């Protein structure tokens, strides 16, 4: 049995104003070190809320309960300063739309440098190194560019470079491939594979796209209305005996069961 990097037990998230409305309902899951873990679900199933809950960044209107254990530490018990230090260095997040996730008034390189400095790491050549690591051939130019000057694919690579800058143990990739075309999706998926191989990065892949999940993930959890519907190794999901909602999802995605 492999080492667990993340263990969530009985995580519930509710709206403070309407305590009976659960956005996440007793979610429990384990992620092994070095695996790619898929979180699948339709819109409003609580995928992104799960990601934000892991980072301790739920909007003020939501309250959470349950335990989140990252590398043996219960992060729900940490002080806000300890949580801040954990974000980026312990767990970090890459977003669907890098154009809005990068601050438009600073260059990409500056924002990566800023993040390194926020975690007391020296920047220097590291910025270019990170960009190259994410498959960018011309790191100098990309670092000196503003987000809007880059193409969608480069921007997403830069976003991932930013997210892994402080060597996080867990990267939450929230729909990172959803706004890209199929070719770019394939490239980004390849990038994730190489990052896992080279850095031993654990990736939590949040997506509504079963195709991406099927190609990349080791284990999958399927969420529906804040509840875990199914939790199994990726290969099992696409087996003939898929049931209920899972089967609907697979059929809707136009994927044949293997």
């Amino acid at each position: 049995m492999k080492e667990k990097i993340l263990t969530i037990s009985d995580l519930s998230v509710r709206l403070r104003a309407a305590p009976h409305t659960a956005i996440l309902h007793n979610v429990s899951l384990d992620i092994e070190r070095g695996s790619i873990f898929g979180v699948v679900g339709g819109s409003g199933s609580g995928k992104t809320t799960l990601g934000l809950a892991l980072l301790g960044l739920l909007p003020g209107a939501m309250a959470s309960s349950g335990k989140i254990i990252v590398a043996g530490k219960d992060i729900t018990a940490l002080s806000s300063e300890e949580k801040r230090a954990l974000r980026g260095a312990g767990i970090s997040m890459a977003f669907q739309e890098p154009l809005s996730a990068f601050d438009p008034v600073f260059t990409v390189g500056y924002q990566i440098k800023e993040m390194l400095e926020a975690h007391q790491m020296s920047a220097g050549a590291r910025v270019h190194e990170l960009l190259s690591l994410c498959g960018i051939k011309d790191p100098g130019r990309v670092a000196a560019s503003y987000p809007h000057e880059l193409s969608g694919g480069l921007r997403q690579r830069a976003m991932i470079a930013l997210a892994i800058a402080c060597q996080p143990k867990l990267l939450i990739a929230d729909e990172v491939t959803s706004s890209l075309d199929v070719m770019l999706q394939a490239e980004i998926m390849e990038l994730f594979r190489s990052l896992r191989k080279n850095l031993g990065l654990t990736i939590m892949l949040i997506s509504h796209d079963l195709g991406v999940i099927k190609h990349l993930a080791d284990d999958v959890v399927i969420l529906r209305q804040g509840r875990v519907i199914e939790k199994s190794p990726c290969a099992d999901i696409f087996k003939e005996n898929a049931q209920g909602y899972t089967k609907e999802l697979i059929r809707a995605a136009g994927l044949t069961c293997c």
Partner: protein
Amino acid sequence: MRNLFNTNRWAMISLWVLGLLYAAALFADILAPYSIRDEARDYSYCPPSAVHVMYGGKFAGPFVYGTRLTFNEYHARIYIEDRGVRYPVRFWIKAEPYRFLGILSSDRHVFGVEAPGRVYLFGADSRGRDVFSRIIHGGRVSLTIGLLGVIISFTIGLLVGGAAGYFGGRVDQVLMRVCEMVMMVPGFYLLLALRAAVPDTFNSMQVYCSIVVILSFIGWAGLARIIRGMCLSLREREYVLAARTMGLSHAMIIRRHILPHTVSYSLAAAMLSIPGYILSESALSLIGLGIQDPYASWGNMLSEAMNIVRIQFAPWILTPAFFIFLTVMCFNILGDALRDALDPTTETAITPEAMPVVEDSSRGGVAA
């Protein structure tokens, strides 16, 4: 932005005028023929001296005649030119010594006349002091008080507004109620009350600083409110959330990812609010609560002009008002231009050269 300044002629002119005024204030000691303490009671309300260049039909270089004091039929003092004495205007003349910016000792002035003669470009005030020199020296106070006041109050306003808007909730409530308390009291009364609280034993430098502080104290609240509103919307942007997931601290996020987005607004607002500070200082000095004699500011020079009879006989004591007007107008034009330049949504006039050339499709062209 540079483009807009190039096409906006009035903004360019304003920039130059302000540049000259500030340069004059900086080099006041050298530029002004007389120091701030210089006075000549025999020349009370002496009118502006005429600078002549021709003497006996020949070019003789600039010179002024001596003046003689007499009384007219209403027993009012009048000065007439004494054609018997000539004082050539000399450049780079040795006169009163000064320490430039408190460091360099010198006694050279850009221009002036030899000792018994006096040159009054803008006339003299009640104590025979040169209005021109005092305007240049007074510019040091009047021009810097606006800048300093704006810098201080905008720093406070940005921080308070930024914190209130970013954190929201209780922080917002408390900070905004404080803002409203400051805004509640009518500005001028607050100004007077705060000035009254300052000890009257202060020297001129301390008075200057206290005025800056008082003006900033009144000015920050309005800005803080607007910045708060902008931050409320800015903090919902995804890059703010992204910055938080990267583990940036609140202070860093406010400083690097919230406030920079308010810069275009606050820069223009700052430019547009400088005139308010200059006017407030003038008002304070006008009623004798600002800079005290012998030190000059444009406001306290005008306090002499509060008597209508004096304006009637010596209209030149109103010159500082012209400079206040000029400065305020330049800052307003510049602020407007800056706001237009920085705000892409403002419609700016398209110059004829920039208009796209439209082919006349009625003559044989195929309409698309």
